């Protein structure tokens, strides 16, 4: 049995830390983990992804198309870009705040948010929307979106991890001065219905 998770977003959004927290939480549970990260040029505002594979029977660190149980998307267009990785009955947790690239304003393909959201609602059986703007407002920072999303992902029940597992990983991996913010970010997901 294994669980395959794709995290995706835009370079600089914190996908790498999120995948590290997931991996650490799973390892604390005694589960084998493999992950793969985008590192390099794409981190300068390009599309980035992490693959996290938890459990037995995993050979490659990368997930094949149509084989992910869960996509955690930091941004709606990136959720659509990675959707081919999702299993037919898979879950998508997505932050609804779009990040519009400069290219969309200087002659490149436009960012059609409505079409993108409609497509996600049509295609994804288990879609969890996270209002990133509201979270940033309530928590007083947009820097902990990754942990807000992890909280929502844990609650979706796909992960066989608890918020306590993730909280322990945060304690170990996140610098002291961000501990409080991240603890609130994780709990934020829990008090939202």
């Amino acid at each position: 049995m294994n669980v395959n998770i794709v995290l995706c977003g835009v370079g600089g959004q914190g996908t790498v830390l999120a995948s590290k927290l997931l991996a650490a939480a799973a390892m604390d549970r005694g589960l084998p983990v493999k992950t793969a990260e985008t590192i390099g040029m794409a981190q300068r505002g390009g599309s980035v992804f992490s693959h996290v594979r938890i459990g037995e029977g995993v050979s490659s660190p990368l997930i094949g198309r149509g084989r992910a149980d869960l996509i955690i998307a930091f941004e709606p267009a990136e959720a659509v870009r990675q959707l081919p990785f999702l299993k037919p009955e898979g879950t998508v947790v997505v932050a609804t705040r779009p990040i519009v690239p400069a290219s969309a304003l200087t002659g490149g393909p436009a960012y059609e948010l409505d079409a993108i959201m409609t497509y996600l609602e049509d295609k994804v059986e288990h879609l969890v929307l996270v209002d990133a703007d509201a979270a940033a407002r309530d928590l007083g920072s947009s820097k902990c979106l990754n942990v807000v999303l992890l909280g929502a992902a844990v609650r979706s029940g796909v992960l066989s991890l608890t918020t306590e597992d993730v909280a322990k990983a945060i304690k170990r991996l996140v610098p002291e001065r961000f501990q409080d913010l991240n603890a609130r970010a994780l709990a934020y997901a829990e008090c939202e219905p």
Partner: protein
Amino acid sequence: MHTEFLMGNEAIALGALAAGVNVVAGYPGTPSTEVLETVAKRKEGNVYVEWSVNEKAAMEVAAGAAYAGARALVTCKQVGLNVASDPLMSLEYLGVKGGMVVLVADDPGPISSQTEQDTRTFAQFSKVPCLDPSGVQEAYEMVQEAFELSERIGSPVFLRPTTRVDHGYEAIEVAEQDEWLVRQPEGFVKDSSRWVIFPRLSVVNHAKIEARNASLSDEFSASPRNFVLPGAGECARKGIATHGISYTYVSDNLDEACLPRVLRVGTPFPFPERLAVEFLQGLDEVLCVEELDPVIERALIAVCGRHGLTTKIRGKLTGDVQPSGENTVESVGEAIARFLGKEVPQPQPSDAPQLPVRPPVLCAGCPHRASFYAVKKAMGKRKTIYCGDIGCYTLGNAQPLDMVDTCLCMGAGINIAQGVFHVEPDTACFAFVGDSTFFASGITGVVNAFYNQANLTVVILDNSTTAMTGHQPHPGTGRTMMGEVVQKVSIEAILRAIGLTTVETVNPLDHELAVETVRRVADEPGVKAIIFKSPCVVLARPQATSKVDASACIGCQRCIRELGCPALALRDGKAVIDETQCSGCTLCEQVCPVGAISGGERL
């Protein structure tokens, strides 16, 4: 032993430390960079580590250390090996005393590189033995084996992971620090018959190398790094030969019902021929699943020829595996399905809505944006060529800046500009070069231009770091990987020493002054230089942000269209600034025709 969750590159670093490495030298390059950085972070005792000025220097520093009996590690990316190939080709003829491992990270895709070259092929060319890991644990073990092998045969040895091994993470078993080997190098022992290369010595050593590699091929056939997994069921007369990360893609695509025999090659050079013959016995067909060059495929074809085997060898050369690009779980799955005569999943036509494209961009507030914009404004409609180079500033090619007309390899831009000048002397030739690139391979280009009477403007984009590869120090920063603060090497002093009389240093974020300087300098004869000096914002972390006064903004969108700063967007017909991204660099403030933007602070 204990368990750590490590990136492949971190595992290689820890493996080298466990093997008692004494000297580590490299030049940054994705996907190799974290190896040397991890050595610097985790080393104990008197391990020496440096970012060398380029890969050739790194190779030579490591060779000297290995001459003196030390264990030495070189780290670079695949194209870095091209820069270091001159010393390495000769070094193989002389050999080493201490173990010397050359870590070269290949990059199928390519994801962050100019080429899809294969270090396994380079191993054949240079005759240097090569190990090719499939995962993080294996990379950790292989680097230690590589040191032992190198010392035993007296030759450098390649370790060549690819991106997905370098940047994959796994929990692996690693040695405790007190289990690390501690080695005291013997020191350099004078012997000019050994360490001075001459044609006479080369021909003698060449024969020895060929004999050694023949016997290594035999030895490798018995090594656990090369193995055969038995087939089963109706596919048992078919085989798959693979290597590296592709081996894991193969594993994830096999099912018990129809299992072909599998050969996994961990030592592509010298090729384990005897094992290959055993693998081929009784097989009708073999599919070679490889990334980059068809190294195993060609070797198996040769083995079949030499041993009179009739097994059909398929792969890249027969069009059964994609000839270029990165393999994926599904591309390998499809190739295997076709090979085994199973149903191949048809790709569904996508009904997804149009998505925005996200080419990598210069950060909000990047000083390179201001430099390019200043030159663009200064030169207007004049006939120009903008030769670019490699670094974050290559991204100046994108719209709306569009300020990079050429980019070839590190340091090339300055020389390419000269070539253009000699053909069309009426073009105003510019060469943009980053500070790290200038030290790595830009200086000789300026000497060439000056001596050979070219006419061009060298623009040095000095952001006080090697940004593209993750902010490594370089000779202009005055910091070393040993943690020392040392005297900086001055770019301006170098340029003046070459003979340039016009060398102007300007802050590119002072837009008016920058434009005026470019106009003036570009019109001077001969070789002249402008140093645009302003720190990379990722390191400087400025605290200010600029804001648009919506009531003053006339919606002309000049700031957005001229600069392409990712912090600038349009909302309800007015410019808005994303304060989570804006660094307050003030460039847009200086561009706005009605002064609607304010609040930034120029660094």
